[in-house]
């Protein structure tokens, strides 16, 4: 009589229920015919049970309240055209909206926003920003020539952009399915042996001050493009740093910005752990559980040089990191030049290829 042990496992290959066959002293999946060692299955099953869903929790205590005397030195402006809200210290007269270049109106005192915790002061001046733009437009063969001449480079503005900074310790437990492939051959056949592995990686890592742009007026992709900022140069916020510059008011709260920071932290964590799985032909993630702890958020102002320009009824926005000088901004394409290059290159490369094929006696 055959005694079947009452142990049930999940087949790592197809997910079907498999039982131990004491007669075979082995485990064979009835659905996909894969055979396993009992020890392997036990270890696999234990690890499966430890899989947990992601947990991401943050404490947001970013920013603080302004004190009366400080707040009174700051003027708030609103742009009637695009709805942009900016602030400037009492000695800086804001006249034009940095987002749409239309005149702004002073609305009075600062209200309803928190005081930043930190500020990274501007390190590069307007001259450097203009140089940055010139360099940005150089050496781009498909850029329409007149675009360079028509830019109102004088209107480049220095603006402090509100960022939420998130700190977090990430704990990860990730399970991968990995394969190794070995091939050999005899006279008639090529054999391929695919070995399947279950791979676990677990550990922790710490992220510091992952920034998320807190202003809807500033496109998020534009702000992420001028990253990273070097936080070691940040200082505690003082209104004096605002002199001569505009500051954008945040209109996205910290807890609304968390999801973006989470996405990026999760991605980085996954990438880092995946880079420790080496020596395999293929690696796929089967389950990933990332847990964030001690998440604290801070509110900071980061320096950005900004230029908005309209060309052929399209808006082009350029931004320069006011600390590192990294310059970004999508540029228009000269379609005629594109087709000329495509046609010319096809003809030139095609001719060379033709000659090489002829000389090598191919085709």
């Amino acid at each position, binding site marked *: 009589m055959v005694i079947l042990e009452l142990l049930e496992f999940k087949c790592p290959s197809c997910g079907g229920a498999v039982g131990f066959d004491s007669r075979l002293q082995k485990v064979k999946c009835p659905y996909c015919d894969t055979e396993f060692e009992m020890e392997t299955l036990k270890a696999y099953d234990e690890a499966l049970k430890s899989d947990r869903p992601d947990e991401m929790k943050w404490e947001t205590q970013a920013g603080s309240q302004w004190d009366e005397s400080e707040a009174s030195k700051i003027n708030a402006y609103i742009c009637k055209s695009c709805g942009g809200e900016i602030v400037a210290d009492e000695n800086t007269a804001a006249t034009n909206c940095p987002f749409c270049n239309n005149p702004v109106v002073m609305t009075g005192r600062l209200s309803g926003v928190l005081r930043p915790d930190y500020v990274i002061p501007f390190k590069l001046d307007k001259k450097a920003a203009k140089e940055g733009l010139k360099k940005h437009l150089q050496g781009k063969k498909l850029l329409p020539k007149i675009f360079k001449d028509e830019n109102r480079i004088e209107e480049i503005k220095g603006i402090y952009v509100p960022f939420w900074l998130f700190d977090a310790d990430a704990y990860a437990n990730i399970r991968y399915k990995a394969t190794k492939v070995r091939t050999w051959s005899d006279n008639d056949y*090529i054999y391929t*042996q695919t070995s399947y*592995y279950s791979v676990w990686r677990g550990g922790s890592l710490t992220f510091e001050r992952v920034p998320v742009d807190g202003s809807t007026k500033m496109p998020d992709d534009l702000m992420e493009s001028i990253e990273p900022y070097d936080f070691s140069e940040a200082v505690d916020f003082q209104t004096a740093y605002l002199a001569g510059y505009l500051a954008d008011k945040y209109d996205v709260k910290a807890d609304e910005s968390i999801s973006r920071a989470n996405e990026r932290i999760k991605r980085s964590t996954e990438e880092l752990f995946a880079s420790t799985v080496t020596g395999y032909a293929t690696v796929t993630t089967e389950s990933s559980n990332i847990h964030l702890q001690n998440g604290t958020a801070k509110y900071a102002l980061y320096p950005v040089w900004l230029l908005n320009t309209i060309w052929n009824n399209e808006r082009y926005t350029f931004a320069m990191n006011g600390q590192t000088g990294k310059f970004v901004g999508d540029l228009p394409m000269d379609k005629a030049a594109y087709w000329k290059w495509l046609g010319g290159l096809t003809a030139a490369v095609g001719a060379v290829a033709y000659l090489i094929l002829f000389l090598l006696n191919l085709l």
Partner: protein
Amino acid sequence: MRKRNLLIVLTIIFWVASLVTGFAASDRELPLLVDDADLLTDNEERTLNSKLERISEEYQCEVAIITVNSLGSKTATEYADDFFDYNGYGYGSNDDGILLLVSMKSRDVAISTHGFAIRAFTDAKQDYMYDKFLPYLSNGNYNKAFSTFADLCDEILAEARAGTPFLSGKRLIVSLIIGVIIALIVTGIMKGQLKSVRYQPAASSYLRNNSFSLKVSRDLYLYSRISRQPKPKSSSSGSSTHTSSSGRTHGGSSRKF
């Protein structure tokens, strides 16, 4: 008087020259067609021999047909190679030539090539030739088989001597495709230069130095599977070669008929 001397000298030079070149060209003692098995009539032999001579001269590559009753202890390929080598077949200093051997007793047929003919008559070309003339040989229509063989040699040698033509539609299409692909890549890079605004997918610049600690690292072997696939038959476009008893390199193949 002087003119006459000059004429004599020129005549001698001419005579010596023709003797030397004539000698060099005819280190072969046998005709191109050797019908030892007596498969052809005298008339057929004459026609075929002059055809072989014309082809050999035209492409500077000798085409020979040998029929024998038996091979002795040799294989058809060995016999053909040796017959070619020891009887001085082959055109010019490289002994370029192809030899067809037919042995009646064992009903073997072999092709042996040397020099330029190795390159001209690739394995695929030889298969193509056998397909064309073997049926006649099997039917006993020897004259038709041999003249077909000669015509095929004519055709293949003409092609080989002409080399590859400069104009080719296939080559044009392939090079255009290469051109378009590379042009698309290069203009794609140029287009990419215009785009500098993109989301940062990860946050790796904000990872604190040395904060990464790997606590679990476990690799568990589960199972393995073996699959097999038939080996693809090699379809090389070249000519396979071997070394004959005289140590020279020959190409060729043999069949039964």
